[in-house]
């Protein structure tokens, strides 16, 4: 248990300045009449909700003996810090917290106050998501939008309870400072990593190991389902029959339809994943060359990778086996002060709202 808690905390650079409460937020997805529901759950949990994992890690990280052993290894978690497992439903924008009864009174008070923050954040999240859905008026009140988001997730008639990984394009591995306040329109996998605690890239190797197969795999499945939804995707969901609980087909005489249905990929731009790693290029190169399987993703260009060098502040793009400096063209991102206005005024779909979802992605903005 100690090894796993240590590996977990060190990999994300959470080794000091612990808050009184540390939430471990797993995710899952609720939907009705949806054979592809597990494609909306957590890919790192083999397509299932990660609530058990969050509870298990919280239990381990709260364990007195584990804390004692961690302390001996130089990783001190203050006694008053408690880990709390939770589950975010990405379709209904609801959240549940586990083992709250184990919190002491002081922490319960803090937790109660934090729940208010979580609810407000989920309101805003529902509002942001709603801009792509035809059935919801984004300009409606936060309360109503949230209610409509919840209803979509339990509607037997809704082919798009959520849009899954549609639009995924980025994977950013580094400190939160890099992206905090940058509006990326829900297109980025964000993996925390602090290069200052890992100068030679030992921890980075473990962090990078699943990036190609998990994030790259998701990205390419969306890519190919989007560019050829007939042969490499599953076509529209509407005529699907579930065959033997193992797949879907368009009729009992049809071939199984692997890949993703059109309702999951229609908003997706078919572009390869760009991985941005905050570390020196020579360290990143050494890490991606750790195994041939990992290197294949990058050297064969199924996934792009850029090193954001913390020493000189420049970007280095990997091509033909080496990292070379990349100078952005100097496009200026607009600064947005009113997030709600940004979402409410975003361009909506031009086609019939019943058979489509808003495909227009928003540019990168800096939020003030």
């Amino acid at each position, binding site marked *: 248990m100690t090894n796993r808690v240590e590996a977990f905390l060190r990999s994300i650079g959470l080794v000091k300045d612990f808050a009184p409460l540390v939430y471990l937020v797993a995710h899952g997805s609720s939907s009705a009449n949806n054979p592809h529901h597990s494609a909306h759950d957590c890919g790192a949990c083999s397509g299932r909700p990660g609530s058990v994992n969050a509870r298990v890690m919280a239990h381990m990280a709260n364990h007195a003996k584990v804390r004692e052993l961690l302390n001996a290894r130089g990783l001190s978690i203050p006694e008053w810090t408690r880990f709390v497992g939770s589950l975010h439903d990405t379709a209904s924008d609801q959240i549940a917290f586990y083992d709250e009864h184990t919190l002491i009174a002081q922490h319960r008070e803090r937790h109660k106050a*934090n729940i208010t923050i979580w609810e407000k954040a989920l309101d805003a999240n529902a509002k942001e998501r709603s801009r792509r859905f035809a059935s919801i008026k984004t300009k409606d009140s936060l309360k109503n939008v949230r209610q409509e988001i919840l209803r979509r997730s339990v509607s037997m008639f809704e082919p798009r309870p959520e849009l899954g990984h549609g639009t995924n394009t980025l994977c950013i591995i580094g400190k939160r400072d890099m992206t905090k306040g940058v509006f990326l329109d829900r297109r980025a996998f964000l993996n925390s990593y602090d290069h200052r605690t890992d100068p030679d890239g030992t921890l980075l190797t473990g962090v990078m190991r699943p990036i190609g197969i998990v994030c790259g795999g998701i990205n390419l499945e969306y890519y190919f389902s989007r560019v050829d939804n007939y042969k490499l995707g599953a076509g529209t969901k509407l005529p699907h029959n579930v065959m033997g609980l193992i797949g879907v087909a368009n009729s009992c005489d049809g071939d199984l339809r692997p890949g993703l249905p059109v309702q999951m990929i229609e908003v997706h731009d078919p572009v390869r994943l760009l991985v941005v790693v905050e570390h020196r290029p020579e360290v990143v190169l050494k890490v991606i060359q750790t195994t041939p399987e990992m290197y294949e993703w990058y050297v064969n260009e199924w996934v792009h990778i*850029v090193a954001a060098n913390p020493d000189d502040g420049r970007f280095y793009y990997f091509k033909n086996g080496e990292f070379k400096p990349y100078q952005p063209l100097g496009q200026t991102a607009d600064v947005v002060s009113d997030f709600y206005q940004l979402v409410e005024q975003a361009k909506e779909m031009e086609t019939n709202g019943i058979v489509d979802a808003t495909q227009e992605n928003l540019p990168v903005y800096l939020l003030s």
Partner: protein
Amino acid sequence: MRDVATKAHEKIVVNGKSVVTAPTHVHIGFDEAHVLHELKHYLPSQTPIKDFIHHNTLHGFQHLKFYDAIFKAGKIFGYQITLQLTEFRELHKIGRIKTAVLDKVLRDKKGADAPAWKEKLLTKDYDTAVPARIGALRANWRSQYKIDLDAAVHPLLFRVLCSYLDQGISLWRFPVKTKSFLGALREMERNSFSSFFKTKRAKQLLLSGNCQLPDLLKIVVGKPEYYEQYLFDQQFSHQGWSGIAAAIEDMPQTLLDRRDISLHDLIVFELLLEIDALDFHVGKNWEPLCNRVTAPPLDLFADVPSSELQEVFILWQDAFEWSYYDEVLSGIAANKKRQQPAPTVKSFQAVFCIDERECSLRRHVEAMDPQAETLGSPGFFTVEFFFQPENGQFYEKLCPAPVTPKYLIKETQSNEVRPHELLYTEKTNTLLPGFLSTLTLGFVSAVQLFLNQFRPKMSPAISNAFTHMHHHSVLSIENKNWTTARTTCKSASRWRK
């Protein structure tokens, strides 16, 4: 096609298990094991839909560079592997592909020829149709024998496959499920009044066990040098079913109710159905397909020559990708200049999954509470294990797909009764109860469905993320009695400190 002498292996069933015996026949030019391996390599590898694990759809080509791979896959299998040319042009027209980025891509790659290439990208007419190599050989059934073999074979093949693999939808269970696919079919054929076949020859071939792949291919195809191409044509005419059979063969644990199926058995049954269909529709004296084919066998995987059109697609794709990438890198660079110091006193921290859907919630949490800090880590939180829900018969893997856990977490004391909805009883699918329930429950169901359109609500029929584990259940995380745990958990264990 391999030019070495190879050996066919007989597959027999011993104690319910498929066993490959010593080689019995030698067929020059056809390496059965190699062809089956190659087929599995290129077929879709999606496992049953309950475990939807995203992967590179063209994983079979991942050893090649991306562009080489996609154009090769497109030529062999007829896939569309980029956006259409008209779509790229439209994206440029509406500004999603930025002219500045397109110009940079052209400058970097084409130098002085950039203006000429830009003209090609923007205006030149191309014939974008790429005839696929797959399917060319079997197309001769239609042209030479005037028979649509797929239409004659697929419906029955798919129904039998689906019935054999069924995980619980069907009311009538497959009569024999303890044997391999072919063994089960043989037993049914032997003991049934009815038959899978309309004619005698295919039935006799199945019952006699004399249905090794090279023998059947000799009847259907005729010439060994065409066997590999024929099998690729045949299996890619239904790559979904073939892919799932191959995936289950390699990972039988992916089915909760296991089945012993193999791609080999599927092909044997399909060839028998083809022989049966030809005997029925053409008569007994038909010649093998390749006696009437004049074109030499096609090397499906031969190199695909590069073309100007491919180069045009590469340039458009690069420009499309960098139109966004450059914007992101510019945004990150601009953000660096205005970075605020992290809060010294943190109200709380929250570690999310790296999933891009959590990207926005993290942003909103930070906006609502500037003292809060958010982080991201893969959502299994570095703990890999199987999970057994209370009253669940099976273990569920809760970690990335390539990892095989050694631990088991059990759920107990959930004290929650799983809700049940009378309307969803399987009895409504049988004749008399179905008739009666349609007259009674059917009307209630119709009203409920109608109301659900306007006011949908949670019901037992809905996949609810929060019921994967009950909220107040107890998890067996820590092993406090190692001896007992070893005996009760068998192959799985629980954590020690």
